[in-house]
């Protein structure tokens, strides 16, 4: 809290702003209160006798009253029934790998030194790991613990079965979901899509119904989790009384880069094993036990722009090794994509006070003075919690700066990056689990999930919490939440 005369000006401004926000956002209430007060006074002044004669003068009879009542009920019903069905998030489960899959820094560096002959790339990877924001407890699949790693299709399938089935088993335990009750299945895994698909693998393992509507999305990057949610939501709008199972994961085994190109070595250092299984439903009886309700999903695709398209690109290096190259312009492009996404989601979620400020500043820039800086809306007024894809330390820093968030708001993202690494599309669910494990999720809170991915895409989802979540949550953070938040240093000396 700033003290002293020098800052008193800014403090006053802060109160002025608070007053303005309160005034605009509660405008209708503030207008109605004096009107209702005046009416009440008037009624009190008239007295009961005069009121009765006023009532009679209206010449209402039974027919009129019945018609009016019927009309009100009819219009109300029509309005309620024509609204889109709400989509509830009943529960979700994040996969917690066994301790045998742990990759502390020492293991990672030793393996790197043993696999690679190139000193330079070993040192480069060390530097990346030092500054990555990852902790000592992240996980890699069993195949990557071999020296050299064994990226066979069989090993990839084994990892897929391990992570996906564990996550779904956990979800079944938490929700009591019966496999026969699943009507829609959406699976997304970017870099591994075998035949038969992962969705067919799930149908086989859990003996799901033959008329299930399943979709297997692939190649869509770290933002694919929200694309799956969008698809599940559309399917739930079309099919009443249904359950949708969404599985988001990234299979690490086949994607180990064996070459020495620097821009392709980054994923080796950052991507880790993880998976999430989410149960969505539009059944009315689930509303009672559901955790969240889906409010909005907004998708932005910057693929038409060359730079954005080439930003995260899979290709072969000169020696023929396949890997994913991350361009140096990633941060700038992410910021750009976020701005486009915000222009669509802003009007949907921001309170009127922020929208008016933004609008007036925009008008001012165009008509009065071009040097005025664009107004960055305060999203902290629209959301209580933020889940930013834990793509890397730089991404979280960039978004914190762009959205003017405090360190508490990005704590979930930073801690997820530290504890689990970049688990790609499932990271958003680990972050949500962190917030719940900390006991911060209260009824009525709004959550904003932001995902970025190759393409270049930026996707957002807005959820509203339906019931306060009590700890302990039996999630992936249970055994270690007491240690968090930790202070993640800029550089860890290895």
């Amino acid at each position, binding site marked *: 809290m700033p003290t002293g005369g020098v800052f008193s000006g800014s403090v006053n401004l802060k109160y002025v702003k608070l007053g303005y926000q309160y005034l605009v956002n509660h405008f209708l209430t503030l207008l109605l209160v004096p009107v209702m007060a005046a009416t009440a006074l008037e009624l009190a002044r008239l007295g009961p006798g005069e009121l009765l004669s006023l009532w009679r003068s209206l010449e*209402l009879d039974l027919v009129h009253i019945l018609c009016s009542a019927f009309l009100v009920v009819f219009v109300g019903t029509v309005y309620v029934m024509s609204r889109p069905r709400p989509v509830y998030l009943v529960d979700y489960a994040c996969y917690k790998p066994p301790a045998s899959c742990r990759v502390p820094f020492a293991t990672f560096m030793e393996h790197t030194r043993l696999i690679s002959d190139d000193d330079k790339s070993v040192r480069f990877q060390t530097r990346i790991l030092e500054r990555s924001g990852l902790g000592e407890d992240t996980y890699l699949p069993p195949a990557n613990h071999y020296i050299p790693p064994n990226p066979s*299709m069989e090993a990839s399938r084994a990892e897929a079965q391990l992570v996906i089935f564990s996550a779904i088993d956990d979800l079944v335990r938490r929700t009591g979901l019966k496999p026969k009750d699943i009507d829609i299945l959406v699976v997304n895994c970017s870099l591994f899509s075998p035949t038969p698909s992962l969705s067919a693998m799930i149908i086989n393992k859990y003996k799901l119904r*033959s008329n299930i509507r399943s979709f297997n999305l692939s*190649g869509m990057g770290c933002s694919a989790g929200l694309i799956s949610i969008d698809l599940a939501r*559309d399917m739930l709008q079309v099919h009443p009384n249904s359950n949708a199972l969404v599985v988001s994961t990234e299979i690490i085994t086949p994607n180990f880069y064996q070459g020495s190109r620097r821009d392709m070595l980054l994923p080796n250092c950052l991507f880790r094993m993880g998976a999430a299984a989410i149960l969505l439903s539009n059944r009315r009886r689930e509303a009672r036990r559901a955790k969240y309700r889906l409010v909005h999903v907004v998708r932005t695709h910057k693929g038409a722009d060359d730079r954005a398209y080439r930003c995260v690109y899979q*290709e072969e290096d000169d020696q023929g090794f396949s890997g994913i190259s991350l361009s140096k312009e990633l941060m700038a492009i992410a910021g750009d994509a976020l701005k486009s996404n915000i222009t*669509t989601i802003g009007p949907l979620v921001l309170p009127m006070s922020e929208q008016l400020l933004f609008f007036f500043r925009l008008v001012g820039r165009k008509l009065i003075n071009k040097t005025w800086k664009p107004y960055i809306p305060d999203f902290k007024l629209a959301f209580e919690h933020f889940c930013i894809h834990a793509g890397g330390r730089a991404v979280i820093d960039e978004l914190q700066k762009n959205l003017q968030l405090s360190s508490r708001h990005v704590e979930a993202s930073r801690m997820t990056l530290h504890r689990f690494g970049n688990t790609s599309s499932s990271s958003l669910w680990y972050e949500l689990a962190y917030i719940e494990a900390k006991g911060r999720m209260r009824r009525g809170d709004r959550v904003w999930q932001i995902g970025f991915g*190759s*393409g270049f895409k930026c996707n957002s989802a807005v959820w509203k919490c339906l019931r306060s979540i009590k700890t302990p949550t039996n999630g992936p953070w249970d055994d270690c939440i007491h240690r968090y938040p930790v202070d993640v240093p800029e550089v860890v000396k290895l």
Partner: protein
Amino acid sequence: MELLPLLTVLLLAHAVVYLAWQAVSRRRRACCYLLDYACHKPSDDRKVTTEMAGDVIERNKRLGLSEYRFLLKVIVNSGIGEHTYCPRNVLQGREESPTHDDALEEMDNFFADAVAGVLAKTGVRARDVDLVVLNVGSFSPAPSLVSRLVHRFGMREDVMAYNLSGMGCSAGLIAVDLARNVMLTRPRTTMALVVTSESCAPNWYVGTDKSMMLGNCLFRCGGAAALLTNDPAFRGRAKMELRCLVRANIGAHDDAHAAAVHREDADGRLGVSLSKALPKAAVRAFTENLQRLAPRILPARELARFASRLLLRKLLLAPRKHTAAGNKAEGPASSPKIDFKTGVDHFCLHPGGTAVIEAVRKSLGLTAHDVEPARMTLHRWGNTSASSLWYVLSYMEAKRRLKRGDRVLMATFGSGFKCNSCYWEVTRDLADAGAWEDCIDKYPPETLVNPYMDKFGWVNDVQGQGSGFLF
């Protein structure tokens, strides 16, 4: 008029109008028109004849005589002709080491031909497309192929893009299902681009496992792009209207799930293994699908006739069971067959192989005329996986078989094991030959026998070579 009744009437009128408008807009969104489609015709330098295929097989030094015979037997009996297309890297001798760029080049050729073609034919600009669904079975790079498409054609920022992969030969209809469901939820009318293909370049099998070599003999390059919309303004120009789509997935049965699996062989080489249980799985999935499809598309009269015959048979058969075991009067009597031709005029069957087409023909009771489009597609283009249905449809159109009011049934099978079917109604007489334009007059040919039968026909004389495969 007094104030209160006036207010009442106004509100009532408003409610009625609102309700009517909601109902009408829901009906409007629910229709789904096929505006147009284009099939990919690769360049002629990618054509592969039986002799060329023989050369490619000979190059693989790991194959012994028995494998060589097996492969040639399959190719000669496959019903595939001399004008199918292969990926460039296979023809250039690089089938053992395909690069990432080879696969991307194959896709780029397809985009430039079919996707650009369908946009040009209909006059729809890329910026008008609201929804893109792409399906390519066994190749999914990062960024996704649908992003590559968005990038290449410069689509809008708010385009909804979906990339399906790994879903096998029946995924073309899964893409249509996805597009249709998303269209139903959007408040405004949607223009959807559905793109289907298969990647052959990285998937040529170079090992010695017989179950995996079939893929090399049957799968060929091809692809199709279709524009779907629910905008009633396009009704006059649309070719067909989608009436119903049924999906059946019998993956819950282990043997069906393992019927087509992409895996490593004993030597660690990747290939798609087609098991001996595949035909049985296909029949099962097909039955499952038809059981749900029939009540939705067949006229009530046919359903009643079938139901009554089934009931009669059950009643007649039951008492006879109690008579002497030697009484085989009913015995293996043919169970009553439901006649799909009462509700369907044209059958678009997946040309998975001659045996598959023959099996489907028998089970549906179709004539040679009905399965001719599928057979001819197999001959001209091979098995182009998920996009093959569009080639079959194009054949029917090129032969001027599709008239206004006709009903078309598309049915495909794929790994998983899935059977998907789709029922269309033709909205106007169709006459566009599309990819068949230069060769439709030569079809049907006098004989489908492979011209190299003389040269390689001796393989058929070889006994006991494990001919368990029905392809």
